[in-house]
């Protein structure tokens, strides 16, 4: 297995190198590019850590959408506003503190108990009663459903926070900042060819999530990316923020989740419990609604606040 170890060491070194580059790069733009490459390689690390579900999320969110978001921000930074770097004293102190934290954590990693504690046996033992084959989905949608429910609300909330940054006079308008000024023919073609493919991949990820790596977050993210692509190319326009339809789509996932959770009081004996007989269809319904809501929320989060283009 030393070959695998060599590959992993190479991967770790590449990641650390890119992280250092992201920290010390001279321009913000260079740093963002470094960070995107970094996110890409971290997805590989997740595979090496046998966490393909996480790898999918990281690939889609961590390097994909985050990278696009940060690129957009870097392109609009003022050029000449190089802020004063902190003095040597502070940098030295920060370096010492950070190095101490890193060293402490490294020591903790080396001292973690062997074998590591795990909930894997418990988590897999009850999976069949839910009709699921992917334990990660089981954790997300059943055992720790409350976290997933609250988190889907967090996405809606982030969107409200984002929209609240609009100017008063722009309220009710469309978030149009994404659309390219002059979408070239190549871009339009790509935006016509790629999304149908992406749609398939997104739906596949959601559907396969019940038994294999994938699920609502991963599928929703891919769908969001495809939607954003058509927005950039000007093939579609984002909805007005005042519209009730888009808001219904945004809360459809968490609302259905909550409703089935409340029904669990009677059907399953507890809030967020699934009745043994109908667990699978209920879970699939929740996942479908969540995928849709997450896709819309992520797309709109990338599209920015409503208003005139900068």
């Amino acid at each position, binding site marked *: 297995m030393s070959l695998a170890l060599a590959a992993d060491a190479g991967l770790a070194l590449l990641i650390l190198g890119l992280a250092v580059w992201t920290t010390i790069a001279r321009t913000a733009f260079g740093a963002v590019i470094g960070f995107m490459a970094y996110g890409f390689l*971290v997805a590989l690390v997740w595979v090496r850590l*046998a966490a393909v579900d996480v790898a999918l999320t990281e690939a889609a*969110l961590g390097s994909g959408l985050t990278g696009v978001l940060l690129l957009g921000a870097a392109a609009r930074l003022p050029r000449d*506003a190089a802020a004063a770097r902190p003095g040597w004293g502070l940098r030295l102190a920060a370096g010492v503190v950070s190095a101490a934290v890193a060293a402490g*954590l*490294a020591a903790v990693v080396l001292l973690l108990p062997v074998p590591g504690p795990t909930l894997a046996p418990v988590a*897999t033992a009850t999976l069949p009663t839910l009709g699921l084959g992917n334990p990660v989905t089981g*954790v997300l949608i059943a055992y720790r459903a409350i976290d997933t429910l609250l988190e889907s609300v967090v996405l809606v909330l982030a969107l409200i926070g984002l929209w609240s940054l609009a100017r008063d006079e722009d309220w009710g308008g469309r978030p149009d900042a994404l659309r390219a000024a002059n979408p070239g023919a190549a871009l339009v073609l790509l935006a016509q060819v790629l999304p149908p493919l992406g749609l398939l991949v997104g739906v596949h990820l959601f559907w396969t999530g019940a038994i294999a790596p994938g699920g609502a977050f991963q599928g929703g993210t891919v769908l969001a990316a495809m939607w954003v692509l058509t927005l950039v190319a000007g093939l579609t326009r984002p909805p007005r923020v005042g519209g009730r339809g888009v808001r219904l789509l945004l809360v459809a996932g968490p609302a259905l989740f909550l409703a089935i959770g409340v029904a669990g009081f009677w059907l399953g004996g507890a809030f967020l419990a699934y009745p043994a007989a109908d667990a699978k269809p209920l879970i699939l319904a929740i996942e479908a609604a969540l995928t849709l809501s997450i896709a819309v929320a992520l797309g709109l989060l990338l599209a920015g606040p409503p208003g005139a283009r900068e």
Partner: protein
Amino acid sequence: MSSVTLFGLCGAALVGLGLFGLIVQPGVLRKILAFNLLGSGVLLLFGVIARRGAAAGIGSDPVPQALIITALVVAFAATVLAVALLRRLVQETGRDSLDTDG
């Protein structure tokens, strides 16, 4: 040393690096990047803990995996909000730093 430990040490280093960047970088965008590195290091450590919990025929404890996915989505939302605030700040002041009078 095993691969898992290796990635654990890598995560620890990333946390330190992110913390350093968050403190010393003057520009807000660079701070946001540093925050993302820091968060990624934290999640990597969590992933190492998950991997150490491989059991029952699964290569990695599913509970931490699910938590990492949740945390990734939350971190993305946080980045969106921070970037949106930054863009407003740049529009209003033409600067991207939070210096004393910012």
